């Protein structure tokens, strides 16, 4: 069904929750892409073209992912905008910031404009592209930030490749600060990281795999925080994985440095022990760390040190992940399971409040970007997702909308699956067989 064809949609009997609080049971009326009315009397006098009975399911603003690799242009064999933004909507995400480490990298305004234009016609999650910090991600010369911003780029990052040169990072931050652009960093010291393919520690030594120590991350996080403090630029530290790096961020946040940070679903739920079976599916960068690191990251969530959960959804072909551990690429697909995974493993396990998890996927990333916090209120964009918190289903990678049909959590039974995601009032995802 085309989004424009249906202008008035009603979701009845939902449990309404947004960053302003729990609004109890009620209805949500959508007209022309925006919320028309919300609450117990929202249906009054509203002539819906379609009505969805939520049956008490959780209706909440669609999630915002500040970190996904959608692989277009050039790596469409792994993912493209159509599959990646459909997968995002299936995961409850209404907005995705795509990373720029494509082929070629997104370092020219024309490439940004093309991505934005293409995504608009798909009717899936909204695309907000990031642009490269350096030409060709080479870490040598700055891209044209202002022109990239005018073309639609919302973030500057060489994600995938650490910015080795501190002077270049400083210039980037100074320039971005004036434009109000967020710089996202992939903070790992290239020398300390070396050729590491997993966390350096007891497990890597036992497995004989080259290690990447937590010091590589903590040292670069320290530099990037210092540059943020020095320049006043808004620096978002992507995918924090280690206790040490989180402690550095805590230190700089206490100083009032303009630093925010992200953790990923996999770094919150998996450890370096996962590599013991020699399956490259678990090869990610930065690497899965230890039980102690995972516990510290979870503690950081509870203490409010983490600003956003970004997926770092990083699809690859199955064949690429069937190489050996030295040559297989880094990254795993997770955008479709991120919420069910974290809801099941953190919220249902009693480690995190549902409200905190939602904040990390809604208001948290919005604040990082300087966007208005998403709300279920009249006039707001009708970007919402309907979550079945009670339904338990197994992760079935073969049914992913992502092209990467494999998962570290294949077969895992999880709660909290999205049933319906609206973007600008139109269904961007609707689970097969879900009752309308």
């Amino acid at each position, binding site marked *: 069904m085309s989004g424009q064809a249906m202008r008035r949609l009603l979701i009845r009997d939902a449990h309404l929750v947004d960053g302003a609080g729990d609004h109890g049971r009620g209805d949500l009326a959508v007209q022309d892409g925006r919320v028309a009315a919300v609450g117990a009397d929202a249906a009054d006098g509203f002539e819906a073209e379609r009505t969805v009975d939520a049956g008490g399911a959780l209706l909440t603003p669609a999630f915002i992912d500040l970190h996904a690799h959608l692989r277009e242009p050039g790596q469409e064999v792994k993912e493209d905008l159509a599959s990646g933004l459909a997968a995002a909507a299936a995961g409850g995400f209404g907005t995705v910031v795509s990373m720029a480490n494509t082929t070629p990298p997104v370092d020219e305004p024309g490439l940004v404009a093309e991505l934005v234009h293409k995504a608009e016609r798909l009717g899936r999650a909204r695309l907000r592209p990031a642009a490269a910090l350096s030409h060709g991600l080479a870490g040598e010369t700055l891209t044209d930030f202002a022109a990239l911003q005018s073309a639609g780029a919302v973030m500057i990052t060489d994600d995938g490749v650490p910015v080795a040169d501190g002077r270049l990072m400083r210039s980037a931050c100074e320039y971005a600060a004036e434009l109000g652009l967020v710089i996202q960093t992939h903070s790992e010291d290239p020398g300390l990281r070396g050729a590491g393919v997993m966390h*350096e*520690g*007891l497990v*890597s*030594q036992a*497995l*004989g*795999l*080259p*290690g990447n120590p937590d010091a590589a991350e903590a040292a670069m996080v320290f530099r990037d925080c210092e540059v943020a403090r020095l320049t006043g630029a808004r620096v978002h530290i992507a995918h924090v994985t280690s206790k040490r790096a989180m402690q550095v961020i805590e230190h700089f946040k206490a100083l009032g440095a303009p630093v925010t940070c992200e953790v990923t679903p996999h770094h919150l739920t998996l450890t370096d022990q996962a590599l013991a*079976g*020699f*399956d490259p599916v678990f090869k990610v960068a930065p690497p899965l760390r230890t039980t102690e690191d995972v516990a510290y990251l979870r503690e950081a969530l509870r203490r409010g040190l983490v600003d956003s959960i970004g997926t770092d959804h990083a699809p690859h072909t199955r*064949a*690429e992940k*069937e*190489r*050996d*551990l*030295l*040559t297989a690429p880094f990254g795993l697909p997770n955008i479709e399971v991120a919420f069910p995974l974290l809801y099941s493993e953190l919220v249902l396990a009693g480690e995190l409040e549902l409200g905190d998890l939602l904040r990390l996927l809604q208001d948290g990333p919005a604040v990082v970007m300087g966007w208005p916090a998403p709300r279920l209120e009249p006039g707001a964009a009708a970007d919402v997702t309907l979550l079945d918190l009670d339904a338990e289903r197994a992760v079935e990678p073969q049914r992913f909308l992502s092209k990467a049909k494999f998962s570290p959590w294949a077969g895992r039974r999880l709660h909290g699956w999205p049933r319906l995601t609206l973007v600008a009032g139109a269904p961007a995802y609707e689970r097969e067989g879900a009752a309308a």
Partner: protein
Amino acid sequence: MATVEIDIPTPEKARKRNLLDFADWTAADVGALFDTADVMAQVLTRTIKKVPALQGFTVGTLFFEDSTRTRLSFERAARAQSADVISFAAGGSSLSKGESLKDTLQTIDQMQADLYVVRHPAAGAPHQIARWTDAAVVNAGDGRRAHPTQALLDAYTFRQRFPGFDGFQGKRLAVVGDILHSRVARSNVELWRRLGGEVVLCGPPPLLPRDVGADVPHTHRLEEAVEGAHAVMTLRLQRERMASALLPSAAEYVARYQLTEAVLARAHPDALVMHPGPLNRDVEIASEVADGPRSVIRDQVANGVPTRMAVLYTLLVGKR
């Protein structure tokens, strides 16, 4: 040719299907394998150095990393038991062109080999291959991780040559050199301790990080490692370690870590000197030590074939 009846002991438990490392091997399994190797060594002293034990079996050697010596040793071990041998060698290049390890394996698997001998630069590749094939898999060296047949022939050599050998209990092996990058060191630690012996690791700090064999005694002092040891194994020092700034210079390494007669005097009076080869003479080991009376380096090489014969026999014939 007269067929020679050979009496080969059977391991007590179910036979092992793979030799990837020693995770599921007991001391008794290894002891039975050594007894088999004794028989194989005897076969190799005959005029006709061949038995029909593996007639009808096909052994595939899959070398994704160059190693003429190990491959020759396995091929000899297979042919001495009348197995057919097929060989695949790729310097990793066909894989870097995009073919996955699984695709490569599945192509080779059409040749219907019964057992693969796998050498690969990436740790874990033999484990991956074992998941994808019904054939038995022998790890002939994977990255830094494991080289179990080398450890077997090292322990077999010790058992054969240590004067008055009465078991590994209480016997100490000192392994000296580039522990970080050494699959030989890792496999020796695993096997020697499984057999009841002790191991001490020694090397300069960048080549002996604290997390390697964290529960194994470490020292950065050669004299400490050698003190009272029943066997001293020195490892080859790669020139690349200096180029990649892990070590200052070969001269400094020689001064601090070369095994000399003077240092060896601290070892047990009957101590054996071992080296997995190839030697850098007068770098990690003084020539006089390598060629001296305590050296069993040539025995190690000679024991490679009977030990590997025993491995192939145990995995293939024991499978039924």
